[in-house]
């Protein structure tokens, strides 16, 4: 199953509770919050290699 949706957010704009829930450890930068349609799970990808790499590889 493919991805259903992605929201790009700044880590600085997230609450501590949200960061803990999604397992985000970085203090700043961008996070892609991916919601998968297979079982409605949410995964946070901290973008460390730039947004072009994220678009192309998902990392």
């Amino acid at each position, binding site marked *: 199953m493919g*991805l259903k949706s*992605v929201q790009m957010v700044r*880590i600085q704009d997230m609450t501590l509770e949200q960061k803990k829930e999604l397992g985000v450890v970085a203090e700043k930068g961008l996070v892609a919050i991916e919601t998968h349609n297979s079982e409605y799970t949410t995964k946070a990808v901290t*973008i460390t290699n730039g*947004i*072009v790499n*994220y*678009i192309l590889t998902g990392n």
Partner: protein
Amino acid sequence: MGVNFLFSYEPVSKALNENIKTDFALVSRECIQKIGEIKSDVSDCDLWLTGQARDKIRDQLNFDQQIRFLSTFKEENKTRGVSGFNITSSITESAKVLSYMGNVLVIVPEEEKSFVPNSSRIITITPSEFLFIYEKSRLSYEKISNKRQSFIEVLLFVLIEDELRTILLQQKSNNNGK
């Protein structure tokens, strides 16, 4: 007021095509990466494409890449469906619309610069020029000991000021000629 980056079709299309290894593609990729870093620092900052360019680039990507691409680049759709506008000419109108919200940096290839005239809100620049000014501004910013301005404010100051931008781009041109 925010800062918006509006890209023409070529830089994004080339940056997202791993098979293209030209200087323009590599520089465009680096330019987008830097703008992504700016986006992570600035609360009111978005990356935009015209609807026509966004559709065409989306079609070159696989399904998962499309989802990630569409979440990264917003659509400015003023000329979507309007006859007489194509993938190149639509960027002028999109830049104008985005300029109502704040400063707009329009990233285009050299041959498209004349399509989007600079104004007090709109700065049209190539990926290579953007990277040069970004690096210069970053070096200057790092030298400031007691920072009261954010990096984006320093960068915008350099980009907006016609004379300063022209001098720096002349310096870039001279460096390339050596």
